[in-house]
């Protein structure tokens, strides 16, 4: 895992946010993680960003409306986060990875009805995080690879990002020159 100091801070703040049902803060923390992850492209950082974002969505929904389940899941998640934090502090990579795996498993250890919902949340969270990495300038294919999604999933999302298309990066080859090149190929 890279940028361990940053992850320690993110997880510590995420624990507080989970306890306070602060979904806005969780999303913000997820975006901060992805910002760092775009440079380092470390899979662990990216996984944590996806998990935190998914958690924000799950908490937003109130799980399946049962407050008890929420508090049980919150406790489980915080327990695993503590394991990750200890793993980083103790420089124990085995503990760190086991805790990451346990965190993922706990999120999916829900009723079968919720399982499909959580799977959907994870997929959407992955696409959301992928679009953030793509915004940072990493190619579509590299981004899709990092997040374990297909380019088809990302293509639709990337195309809808108006902000990116408004910026005119790549002025060197102008419109007319590129059209001329295309027409010449078909002459």
């Amino acid at each position: 895992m890279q940028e361990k100091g940053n992850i320690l801070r993110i997880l510590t703040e995420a624990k507080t946010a989970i306890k306070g049902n602060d979904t806005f803060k969780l999303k913000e923390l997820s975006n901060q993680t992805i910002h760092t992850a775009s440079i380092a492209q470390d899979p662990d950082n990216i996984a944590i960003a996806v998990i935190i974002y998914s958690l924000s969505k799950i908490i937003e929904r109130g799980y399946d409306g049962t407050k008890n389940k929420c508090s049980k899941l919150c406790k489980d998640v915080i327990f695993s986060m503590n394991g990750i934090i200890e793993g980083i502090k103790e420089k124990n990579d085995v503990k760190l990875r086991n805790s990451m795996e346990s965190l993922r498993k706990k999120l999916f250890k829900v009723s079968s009805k919720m399982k499909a919902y959580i799977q959907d949340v994870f997929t959407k969270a992955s696409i959301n995080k992928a679009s953030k990495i793509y915004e940072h300038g990493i190619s579509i294919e590299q981004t899709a690879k990092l997040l374990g999604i297909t380019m088809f999933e990302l293509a639709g999302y990337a195309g809808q990002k108006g902000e990116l298309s408004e910026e005119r990066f790549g002025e060197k080859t102008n419109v007319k020159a590129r059209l001329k090149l295309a027409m010449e190929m078909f002459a």
Partner: protein
Amino acid sequence: MKAIIFDSSTLISFSMNGMFEELRKLKKMFDGKFLITLEVKGEIIDKPVTIKKYELEALMLNQLLEEKVLEMPDSVGVDNKQISIKTREISNIANNIFIANGKPMTLISDGETSCLALSNILNDKKITNVIAVDERTTRLLCEDPIALKKLFQKRFHTGINYKKENQKFLGNFKFIRSAELVYVINQKELTSLKDPRTLDAMIWAVRFKGCYISDDEIREIVSLGRKH
């Protein structure tokens, strides 16, 4: 002999808009080959065919391969081993051009790099070629790395070191996008749509499926298209 090397991003734009017939007609009037690499085939056919949501697009793209609308590089005498070796070489250059926080940034992946590798091999064989790439990073990396550096600085809020000496090799590639191919389709009247808004509609459609093109560029292409 001429060739257009298709990256996954361009074929995804076409397939998600269902523009398979337009691709067939384009190929019919093209005096050369539409090529895809093994890595691109993996991204547009082999992987999505296993995902229900994209299975149909993958099957339809596979059909284009069976009809030889799309062809593999061995059709022009280039084997996969050659491409793999060149892909690794280019990847080492392309993914070491920008340094952020003391570490090289991995910008492009094997599919995109394999298109550059094939183009490089075809250049050596004196086969005229262009690469059709819709996504932004590969094109900017080769055509305007300074613009890419600006993008990184804006997004990362950190200093980015740029190894100019690595750039020389990447400056020799030629790119078009699905937007330009759509322009050709319009100018050559290869679409069954006769509405004067067709070019505008097709360019917006490919943009919404990942073609990196600005509003200004769309306006300019549409206005040029109307002059003919």
